[in-house]
């Protein structure tokens, strides 16, 4: 195993790298290292052997943490590129071509896409808006910071949920930049939704029936927002789209499960210790879902690098996009 892959895998495991984009970029950069240090063993072809090598890296990463849909798409892209490498290229040329392809994917599909999303989304923020966001989505954070730099006057409500409490990190960064914020837990969502003018959410993936697969709780936020007639805008790079369809919003079969002990212990609240000595009880279980799926009727608009589209247009983008990157 290449040390770069090993390092990234352990960072996934410890939670040092989290968030769809960060994980994907870290993985692709590790692959670049793998490609750089690669030399074709005798009596093997570069295309086949390197694909096998990447596959073994992927299965190691999957052991560390289940892959996100976006990572699956990126892996598909890399493997496609390897398979399409012309046989006429020398080893060093092939490696250089592959590295630059991966570099291009990171720059265009992830970093570039975010810039475009920010450009689009900022047009939707007006003076006096009260924006609500949930968790700590990177794309939304960039949108908010950019809008603030443009001098727009708005307030941000950061909604958070246990056990990760990632919203606190976002909250800290926003306040540092001088944005007025309010903070609450997801339970209080109905209390604060009256004030909200727009909801900005991030997504781990968008499926082709318009379902948004994201951090658990996103569906609750979108549902309450819809009940209060507040528009829900989802910021998601197009490389995270997937042609899968799902109807089951708990997706128990493919959902990632977090550490159950994270629920029984409340960090920083020593008075909440009801489960001390009960954790081995056969009747007591803890379920720590990581993701949920938001039905497309709760989504007003998806902001992608291809523009602002309704959720019904997702399959079109999936088709166009897939054609483009398979070429």
């Amino acid at each position, binding site marked *: 195993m290449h040390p770069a892959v090993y390092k990234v895998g352990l960072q996934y495991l410890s939670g040092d790298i989290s968030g769809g984009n960060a994980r994907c970029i870290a993985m692709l950069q590790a692959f670049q290292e793998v490609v750089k240090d690669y030399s074709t063993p005798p009596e093997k072809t570069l295309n086949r052997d390197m694909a096998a090598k990447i596959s073994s890296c992927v299965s190691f990463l999957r052991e560390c943490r289940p892959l996100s849909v976006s990572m699956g798409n990126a892996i598909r892209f890399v493997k496609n590129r390897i398979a399409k490498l012309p046989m006429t290229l020398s080893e060093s040329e092939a490696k250089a071509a592959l590295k630059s392809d991966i570099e291009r994917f990171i720059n265009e599909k992830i970093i570039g896409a975010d810039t475009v999303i920010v450009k689009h989304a900022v047009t939707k923020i007006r003076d006096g808006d009260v924006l609500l966001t949930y968790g700590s989505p990177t794309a939304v954070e960039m949108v908010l910071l950019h809008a603030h730099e443009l001098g727009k006057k708005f307030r941000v409500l950061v909604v958070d949920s246990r056990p990760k409490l990632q919203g606190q990190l976002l909250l800290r960064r926003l306040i540092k930049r001088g944005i007025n914020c*309010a903070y609450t*837990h997801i339970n209080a969502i109905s209390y604060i939704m009256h004030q909200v003018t727009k909801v900005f959410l991030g997504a781990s993936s968008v499926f082709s029936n318009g379902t948004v697969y994201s951090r658990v709780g996103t569906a609750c936020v979108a549902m309450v927002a819809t009940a209060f007639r507040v528009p829900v805008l989802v910021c998601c790079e197009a490389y995270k789209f997937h042609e899968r369809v799902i109807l*089951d919003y708990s997706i128990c079969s493919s959902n990632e499960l977090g550490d159950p002990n994270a629920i029984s212990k409340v960090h920083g609240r020593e008075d909440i210790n009801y489960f001390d000595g009960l954790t081995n009880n056969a009747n007591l279980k803890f379920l720590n879902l990581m993701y*949920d799926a938001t039905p497309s009727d709760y989504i007003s608009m998806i902001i992608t690098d291809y523009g602002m589209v309704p959720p019904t247009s997702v399959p079109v983008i999936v088709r166009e996009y897939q054609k483009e990157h398979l070429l």
Partner: protein
Amino acid sequence: MPDVQSTVVEFVNKLRKRKIEGSQATAKCTVELLRSVISHQRVPHANQAAALIDAVKAVGEQLVAANPVELAVGNVVRRVLHIIREEDLSLTTAAMGGLDLLDASDDDDVDNCKGIGYPAMSAAVVAAAARSTLRPPSLQTLLEGTPESATVPYTSSSGADSESKTADKSSLTRKLKHDVIEGVNQLIHEIAGCHEQIAEQAIEHIHQNEVILTLGSSRTVLEFLCAAKEKKRSFRVFVAEGAPRYQGHLLAKELVARGLQTTVITDSAVFAMISRVNMVIIGAHAVMANGGVIGPVGVNMAALAAQKHAVPFVVLAGSHKLCPLYPHNPEVLLNELRSPSELLDFGEFSDCLDFGAGSGSLQVVNPTFDYVPPNLVSLFITDTGGHNPSYMYRLIADYYSADDLVM
């Protein structure tokens, strides 16, 4: 009297400092306090009901003002006032019955003479008023055809006729207080026993192999689920943990101790799990007259999710939680904001809390309650049985008299 006054002050302080919370506990304390107020209240010979009502009202106003969000306190005060009015009325009608027999000759002209100040006459009017206002309309009262003018305030008239029949009234005075205290005792009994009454109905609603979702920590819900478990129903309970108070942890612990299969989920997973759930059961903090529910924070989210997946949303409420008021903007006006320290460590964010140095301001929102509109509720289960949200106003009308709605 002074010792009663001091217990009132003590209880008011407890309410104000939120040392005592929860509708069950506050209702129980309130009714016991009112009982001692009534038993210590010296009643004059004339107009004893009015004196009792004034005393109870005076104490009730203080209690309600101490914690306006704890609606059970106001409910119980109104219930006690209703008991006083009813007992007074039934005594007057009973006395009237006795008069009817004594002055049978005088009563001949009652129907054509509507004189004021004629003692027997005014008592008859009171009786008629009693029939038309308090008793449910029956065929008999309709056929009797009591005139509309009969509905005069009876407290004044009972005072009027007490002047002439003082001998009768001296025994009545003692009897009224005795009867009222008897009624209040019944109310205490009812509040204490509402769990069992509600739990008895569990078997009709929870079926084999079902999955129940609940949130918040409610003794009523606990007893309800355990009653079904005792009847050999096997089912699974999902408990949302209810951050930042984590009352779900408390409920889960008690459920596990009683041997129920319990799974604790995060609050954010409510929507994800609702499609796996057969029924949502919650305990109300208060039920408003329009059928809306004040419940633990997060309840509205669960109710919306339940509606989306057509999962029945069942609310358990003892009769002391039925509030005769109609809510206006209840999310804000009938809510209470708690300390931000439950959400954020002051130490961690202390640098962000100063409003200078170009950093943004931070506001932390930590409400206690949530409002569920009546259209999201499938069923109310009270100690008198199951009811639709649209029926709650009528049920509530049985428990309170219209004069006490505004205190």
